């Protein structure tokens, strides 16, 4: 009666093998490494980069322990941190000859020492949270109302030019909190306006109002349009953050959406919060200005300008492609007027191009300026922290109306992509604010790992010793089952790459303490059956069977609490809940299926079993 069918043993063996395989990477530890990734869309990470890094290291005679390449980065592993830092400096110097215009991020990182065949099976060590590895954590709140207001203001400008184009007389357009109010003298004009707006601005919801003698038309953004704008704002902010964080040279930054209007940024290993915040909070703006062509072609003026004294009313810039030029100080257009920038191709020449879309006010200005300046050059600048950069300076060929602008000429497809991305992501779509911040020093991280590890280890040992003394062989079997639980839990955490935090380690320790409950229940039940005079084999069977209902009930109630924590918890609570829930599941398997398997192996085949080694039961 106490025999398992073969498939059950195979199942246990399979689970154990899988558990061992995925737990294995955690034992190899981590080695210092240098990670090289690309900042620009134009610069690809490929085998050539790998070869180049190898060359650089060879030239400096720095010994590495392996070079790896994946889709986004090239990594080199080193024996100690000293070599790592030396290598970082060497690679940085060689790859980024011009520090102001770096093409690569060269960052310090840690990579697992586990052999390549394990990594290729996606068997990775557990992913440690910031409280264990040190670093900075930010929670940013995106001002969604700000995004909507920004949009409404732009729409107001659009409506004004629409009214003028359609010849509708109105008494003013103004934004009143979250709606636009347009005043009219008579109903006829209002109806005409209404028809025009409905066809031109499908995102607006119009309601007619009467305000004293005035007729009013109130326009609000439709809920679905609001949602779209907000989603777009969030996505764009995340893209912008990505670009900015690249500058910091962080090996594995985490930038994720949290909830509807928040963004989490985690920068492992970064200690300088001031610099990190500075970069996160930076606002970039786009400006369109005219180029002073006359002076730009005059070598003597340019020489003077390069030394820092450009002619009055102009500024000296170097274009991305390298050519110096003088740009007038007067701003034609700002990035607020830009609604979109997409890479594409010129319709006639099939050259790569960037298509810009301007709002209607911007389109009008652009039309006027281009009409008056055909044949001259126009500069598009990205201004960050008061420092400008000329992204491109194309020649104006004809008057451009309609708000659709195309920048083309001397551009490759990748460059077009890059420019479009820069123009789009250069500025934040909505303002953001830091609502939560955490910095954990590296020494505290190491301390936390040690504390968590010791808590688990000594808790486990204490339970193991007690069980072995109290329940003898059955106690030892329970301990083996408990070890299986630990093995499976760590394997599961490694496999899922769930973030392990200090509360998570606490949950491992607690899970072990609670998981033993199932084995205590079973062992007590077997003792009780023996006391009632049942034969040992029957006692084992009855013990496991009767205890199972209780084990199930108690684990379900624990799981309910765990799931509630998982759904409603955040930060440290979630870290605890993930491990707690997984631990309950693995403990069900190990304490019931695995321990029964061992008991069956030990006792199941003995016909004449007179006594079980489960402690004293003879007192009744």
């Amino acid at each position, binding site marked *: 009666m106490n025999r398992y069918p073969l498939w059950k043993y195979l199942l246990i063996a399979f689970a154990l093998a899988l558990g061992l395989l995925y737990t294995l990477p955690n034992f190899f530890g981590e080695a210092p490494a240098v990670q090289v990734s690309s900042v620009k869309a134009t610069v690809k990470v490929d085998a050539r980069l790998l070869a180049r890094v190898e060359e650089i290291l060879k030239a400096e005679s720095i010994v590495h322990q392996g070079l790896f390449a994946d889709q986004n980065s090239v990594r080199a592993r080193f024996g100690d941190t000293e070599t790592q830092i030396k290598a970082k400096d060497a690679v940085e110097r060689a790859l980024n000859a011009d520090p102001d215009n770096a093409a690569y991020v060269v960052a310090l990182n840690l990579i697992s020492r586990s052999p390549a065949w394990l990594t290729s099976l996606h068997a990775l060590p557990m992913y440690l949270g910031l409280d264990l590895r040190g670093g900075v954590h930010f929670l940013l709140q995106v001002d969604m109302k700000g995004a909507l207001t920004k949009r409404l203001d732009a729409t107001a400008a659009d409506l004004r030019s629409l009214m003028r184009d359609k010849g509708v007389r109105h008494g003013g357009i103004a934004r009143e909190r979250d709606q636009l109010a347009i005043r009219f003298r008579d109903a006829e004009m209002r109806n005409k306006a209404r028809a025009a707006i409905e066809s031109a601005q499908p995102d607006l919801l119009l309601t007619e109002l009467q305000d004293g003698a005035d007729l009013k038309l109130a326009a609000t953004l439709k809920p679905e349009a609001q949602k779209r704008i907000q989603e777009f704002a969030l996505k764009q902010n995340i893209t912008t953050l990505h670009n900015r964080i690249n500058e910091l040279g962080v090996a594995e930054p985490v930038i994720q959406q949290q909830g509807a209007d928040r963004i989490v940024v985690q920068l492992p290993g970064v200690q300088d*919060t*001031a610099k990190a*915040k500075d970069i996160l*909070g930076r606002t970039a703006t786009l400006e369109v200005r005219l180029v002073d062509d006359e002076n730009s072609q005059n070598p003597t003026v340019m020489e003077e300008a390069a030394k820092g004294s450009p002619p009055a009313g102009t500024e000296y810039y170097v274009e991305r492609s390298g050519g110096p030029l003088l740009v007038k100080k007067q701003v034609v257009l700002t990035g607020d007027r830009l609604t979109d920038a997409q890479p594409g191709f010129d319709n006639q020449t099939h050259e790569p191009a960037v298509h810009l879309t301007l709002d209607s006010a911007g389109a009008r200005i652009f039309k006027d300026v281009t009409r008056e300046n055909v044949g001259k050059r126009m500069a598009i600048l990205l201004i960050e922290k008061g420092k400008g950069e000329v992204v491109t300076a194309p020649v104006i060929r004809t008057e451009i109306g309609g708000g659709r602008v195309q920048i083309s000429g001397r551009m490759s497809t990748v460059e077009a992509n890059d420019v479009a991305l820069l123009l789009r992501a250069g500025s934040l779509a909505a303002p953001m*604010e*830091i*609502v939560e*911040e*955490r*910095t954990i*020093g590296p*020494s*505290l991280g190491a301390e*936390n790992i040690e*504390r*968590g590890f*010791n*808590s*688990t*280890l*000594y*808790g486990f040992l*204490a*339970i193991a010793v*007690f*069980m072995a*003394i109290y329940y003898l062989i059955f106690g030892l079997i329970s301990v083996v089952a408990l070890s299986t639980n630990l093995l499976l839990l760590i394997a599961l955490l490694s496999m899922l790459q769930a973030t392990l935090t*200090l*509360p998570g380690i*606490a949950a491992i*320790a*607690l899970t072990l*303490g*609670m998981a*033993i*409950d199932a084995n*205590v*229940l079973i062992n*007590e039940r077997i003792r*009780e059956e023996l006391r009632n005079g049942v034969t040992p084999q029957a006692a084992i069977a009855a013990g496991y069977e009767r205890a199972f*209902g209780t084990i199930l*009930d*108690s684990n*379900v*109630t*624990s799981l*309910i*609490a*765990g*799931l*509630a*924590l998982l759904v*409603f918890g*955040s930060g*440290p*609570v979630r870290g*605890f*809940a993930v491990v707690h829930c997984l631990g309950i599941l693995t403990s069900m398997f190990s304490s019931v299926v695995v321990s029964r398997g061992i008991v069956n192996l030990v006792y199941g085949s003995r016909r004449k079993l007179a006594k079980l080694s489960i402690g*004293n039961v003879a007192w*009744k």
Partner: protein
Amino acid sequence: MEFFKIRKDIPFMRHALVFNVISLITFIAAVFFLATRGLHFSVEFTGGTLIEVSYAQAADTQKIRDALARAGYTDTQVANFGSSRDVLIRMPLKPGQDSAALGAAVMDALDRDAPGAQLKRVEFVGPQVGKELAENGAIALLLVVFGIIVYLALRFEWRFAVSAIIANLHDVVIILGFFAFFQWEFSLPVLAAVLAVLGYSVNESVVVFDRVRENFRKMRKATVPQVIDNAITSTISRTIITHGSTQLAVLSMLVFGGEVLHYFAMALTIGILFGIYSSVLVASPLVMWLGVSREQFVKPQKPKEEAVV
């Protein structure tokens, strides 16, 4: 080895009233301290800034306080954290204050007047986040209570569900009472511990109830108190050993877990100790008083339908 050699059922139910009165008094005391002293919420809930620094030698907290006061930070709390070398500085939330500059500014102030500090951790929580955390915590608690009631009502009977939840919620209040009385810091990990305790000590009630149900079927002649006494007596060994094992793990956390896990482990310890008591000795009498009976579990034999003349 055997700790419990109990030959006769212990008449727990005869003293049911006493247990419940003890419970009630502890409960009222806990509520009293919660009301008068309140919980000492951590920065996560209240919002504010927390800065942990460490020195090579024992830190002079008074010197640090003076340094901060000179730099214009008057409303701060400075206390040792874990060891005499580690110091925790708490600063309340001030409108218009730039969180970005605060950490650096404090370190500058310390460098000037109490040099040698090494920054270990900075935590800043805005007011809105704190409020949300408190709300989410409350929702999680309600959800756990509701989930457990529904599950127990389905698996057993509503009387069991109600008694289990009353007994265990009173554990939660008592844990909170301890935190209010000693003014221990109530942080997010402590909240997690409280909810875990709720799930865990319901287990105890479940184990006893399971036995009660089984006994109703087996002990046909016994009265309700006898059935419950037998159920508690035959599971008491398991109850204490299980709790002992869990407490071993928690004790290990209390000793080796450091400052961060200290109150987490503390909440669990109180929860486990009171859990044994309440889930067994409070929940069972409640079930009895709510009027549990054999008929709710054992289906009465249907009288044969006989032909009537």
